[in-house]
């Protein structure tokens, strides 16, 4: 029974992942990505990881996909903007590379002594006597807060940095404040410039010099 569920969810997840990378509209891709996350969560459940199965749905399908859909909504790309001019040769090259990568991985899996060992032959086999608690919230929490507490704290720092970085990147760019007069004079003297005033700063912070800022465009953002 487990094996059927594993094969069915595996085939569905593979088809869903192929649809994610081939659909032109990113909204369709996001919907298939949700299906993919759901089937992977089912595979986690079969592989004796119930906590991860729940977390997969909560974090991936719940949080990360909402983030993606919000960004798709903010961009509101028009159909003609979704056209991609990819050369056929590049697509063939990408297919050849990823296919070669899969064949290489399959060869490595075939050669691995770990895979050939009898304990790995059947993942549906009953677990050992010490194992029934594995994969529960309790087991993962104990491991996370006892032996892995340093990586756990480092991950929290990483998430904090990601939050700060995301806020900084998406903040609206304000005009740079004009330097104070003594600083300006000092710069002029140091350069020995002939012009009494330094050249005005023409470009905005995120815009090439010479390209005018269209007011309507700024209002949209």
């Amino acid at each position, binding site marked *: 029974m487990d094996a059927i569920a594993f094969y069915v969810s595996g085939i569905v997840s593979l088809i869903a992942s192929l649809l994610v990378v081939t659909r032109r509209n990113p909204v369709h891709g996001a919907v298939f990505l949700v299906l993919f996350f759901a089937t992977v969560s089912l595979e986690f459940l079969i592989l004796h990881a119930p906590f991860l199965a729940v977390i997969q749905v909560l974090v991936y399908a719940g949080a990360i996909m909402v983030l993606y859909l919000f960004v798709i909504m903010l961009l509101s790309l028009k159909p003609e903007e979704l056209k991609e001019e990819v050369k056929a040769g590049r697509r063939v090259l990408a297919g050849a590379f990823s296919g070669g990568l899969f064949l290489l991985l399959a060869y490595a*899996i075939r050669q691995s002594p770990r895979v050939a060992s009898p304990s790995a032959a059947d993942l549906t086999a009953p677990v050992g006597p010490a194992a029934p608690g594995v994969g529960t919230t309790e087991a993962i929490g104990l491991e996370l807060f006892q032996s892995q507490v340093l990586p756990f704290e480092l991950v929290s720092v990483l998430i904090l940095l990601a939050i700060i970085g995301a806020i900084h990147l998406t903040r609206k760019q304000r005009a740079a404040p004009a330097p104070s007069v003594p600083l300006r004079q000092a710069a002029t003297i140091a350069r020995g410039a002939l012009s009494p005033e330094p050249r005005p700063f023409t470009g905005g912070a995120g815009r090439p010099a010479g390209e005018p800022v269209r007011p309507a465009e700024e209002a949209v953002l």
Partner: protein
Amino acid sequence: MTIAAILLAAFGLKEALLLASAIFSVGVFGVLSRQNVLVILMSVELMLNGANLALVALGRAFLAEKGTAGPRAASLAQVFVVMVLAVAAAEAAVGLAILLAAYRRWRTANAGEISGLSG
């Protein structure tokens, strides 16, 4: 394979790892062949999920071993997946923020047209 064979069949570590590497390869194909930054980021999520699946399957294979080392290894594999999940969330947040900033600058989500760094 007939239906009866599938009903009786079990799946081993080999099948699980093959599925994980197939998902990873699909993600690599998406990153290499697509131009839309959103789809590229989604393909990266596919790759991370393939790696997660491989980790969980390897941990499950350790569970069948005798003694306490096997269950410990399985727990550690799942803790590692939790870490990967957190990194994936951070990656999605920063990646999408960069996409929004680049969209303001170039008015496109197409990676081929965002070419400011190459001059």
